[in-house]
């Protein structure tokens, strides 16, 4: 769709890359994503791959994504070099809703789910609001991708690792759960992104504590613009304007961010 030029493609931790893409992008809302065509000269892998926007390049000259190599598409991406062309499409999706006067904006991230929060955190801090990040990773190596967040002034960062090699030992939902009551007192809003099991738990904890909660979902996507109807997720309340005919929401166009209580978690 749009030709972008790879500005950089840096290994920042084993298996994790940050890729800068020079690109005349329209404005981006934190939580939106782009779809990247992995190879222009090949029809395999065929479909575009979705990636959250990690940051906007200085002077809005493009964007940056943070990605992990998990399969063929991301493997091919990791071989791109500065100056190479990349075909991107976006920004797509709704992004995180700005909430009026939250006592504190709380971001809960699991693994790669941290990607869309860098831009969100910067935006929130810029508005002078309070922000905290709870981040869960498997171990020290994975947790290394949170380094940039530590440099954001005013952002409270708490880390949990499954192997205990960094921060608290356990899941991110454990550390978030412990603080939930206290956060509720501050009338915080919760933004979560990560594996669906984690999101479900964050939504549950939030609901229990009366915290407004927004989750960013992931689904295999073909079109990214709501036309293939492939990335369906069963939603309850947001299911259209007073009709029952739209029981499925599309993660790409109705999301990727949904109010936590709108997702039928059992169906995921």
């Amino acid at each position: 769709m749009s030709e972008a030029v790879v500005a950089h493609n840096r290994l920042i931790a084993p298996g994790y890359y940050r890729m800068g893409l020079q690109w005349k992008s329209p404005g981006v809302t934190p939580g939106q994503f782009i779809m990247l065509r992995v190879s222009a000269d090949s029809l395999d892998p065929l479909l575009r791959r979705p990636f959250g926007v990690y940051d906007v390049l200085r002077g809005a000259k493009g964007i940056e994504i943070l990605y992990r190599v998990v399969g063929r598409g991301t493997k091919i991406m990791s071989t791109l070099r500065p100056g190479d062309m990349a075909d991107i499409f976006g920004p797509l999706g709704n992004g995180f809703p700005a909430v009026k006067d939250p006592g504190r904006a709380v971001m809960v991230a699991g693994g790669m789910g941290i990607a869309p929060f860098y831009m969100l955190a910067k935006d929130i801090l810029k508005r002078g609001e309070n922000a905290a990040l709870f981040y869960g990773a498997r171990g020290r190596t994975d947790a290394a991708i949170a380094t940039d967040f530590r440099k954001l002034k005013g952002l409270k960062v708490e880390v949990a690792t499954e192997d205990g090699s960094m921060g608290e030992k356990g899941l991110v939902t454990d550390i978030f759960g412990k603080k939930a009551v206290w956060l509720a007192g501050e009338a915080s809003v919760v933004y979560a992104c990560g594996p669906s099991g984690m999101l479900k738990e964050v939504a549950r904890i939030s609901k229990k504590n009366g915290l407004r909660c927004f989750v960013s979902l992931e689904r295999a996507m073909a079109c990214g613009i709501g036309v293939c109807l492939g990335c369906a997720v069963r939603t309850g309340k947001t299911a259209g304007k007073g009709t029952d005919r739209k029981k499925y929401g599309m993660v790409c166009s109705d999301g990727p961010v949904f109010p936590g209580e709108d997702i039928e978690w059992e169906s995921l």
Partner: protein
Amino acid sequence: MGIPLKKVDLRVDAGGGLKLKNPVMTASGTFGYGVEFEPYMDLGRLGAIVVKGLSLLPREGNPPPRTTETPCGMLNAIGLQNIGVEAFIREKLPRLKRFKTPVIANIFGETVGEYREVARRLDGEPGVAAIEINISCPNVKKGGLSFGTDLREAARVVTAVRKATRLHVMTKLSPLADIKVMVRAVEDAGTDSISLINTIPGMAIDVERRRPVLSTVTGGLSGPAIRPVAVRCVWEAAKVARVPLIGIGGIVTASDALEFIIAGATAVQIGTANFLDPSASVGVIDGMEDYMKRHGVKKVKNLTGSLG
């Protein structure tokens, strides 16, 4: 054919009153209700827009996962989620008909009666240029492919739709049908044109979990992977067809589209390629024009069935 040209004629006549400014349409289910593509292209450039399959009542479709990628292709099992014919006419058509591009309503029913009712509802609706009968969807339990592989059932559906509307009737075939006899059957039942192919039934298994990838186990294979099969189906159909053929299956480039036209199609539809590039069909139109200029082909209709 031979001398390079400056100007070429892309118009085609798809029969039954359906005249197109160029032979490139977008395929049902891959282009939403058309309006979603407004930000990405000039919808007015398309030969026609075929909208997502419409049923009498809204359908919620199949549970996820509904799509998965395969080598040079994808499987889908959307299950014809759609807003229903009424909502389409009310909410989508008014916007869509403002473009100078014919709108083709792809329709689906679980019974012959449902097909007839959807067709009747669309008949005479200003802004609808044609009806494409989907008797080849592999992703629904009732209807769909069960009509598309049975000659008598297929003929019944086409006859019923034919009687219910004065619009151009296009019938969409499955690659699993016995092409030649099916062409005859739907022609005899009164179809104005035939589009082919719909997706090929296929499946994928997540071996780590030993579970089907799609919630419905099987789905429909589309994309470049199926193109050779689709071209062959069109070529077979062209041997016996008396009505115009619309070629579908794996088209990404103008060259791909030309394969279908040279094999015997009057026009083509672009499906999965819309996901790679929302303006893929415009690229195909431009490329086709280039080809014709280069080869000195004045009218695209002269290319139909020109296989030497």
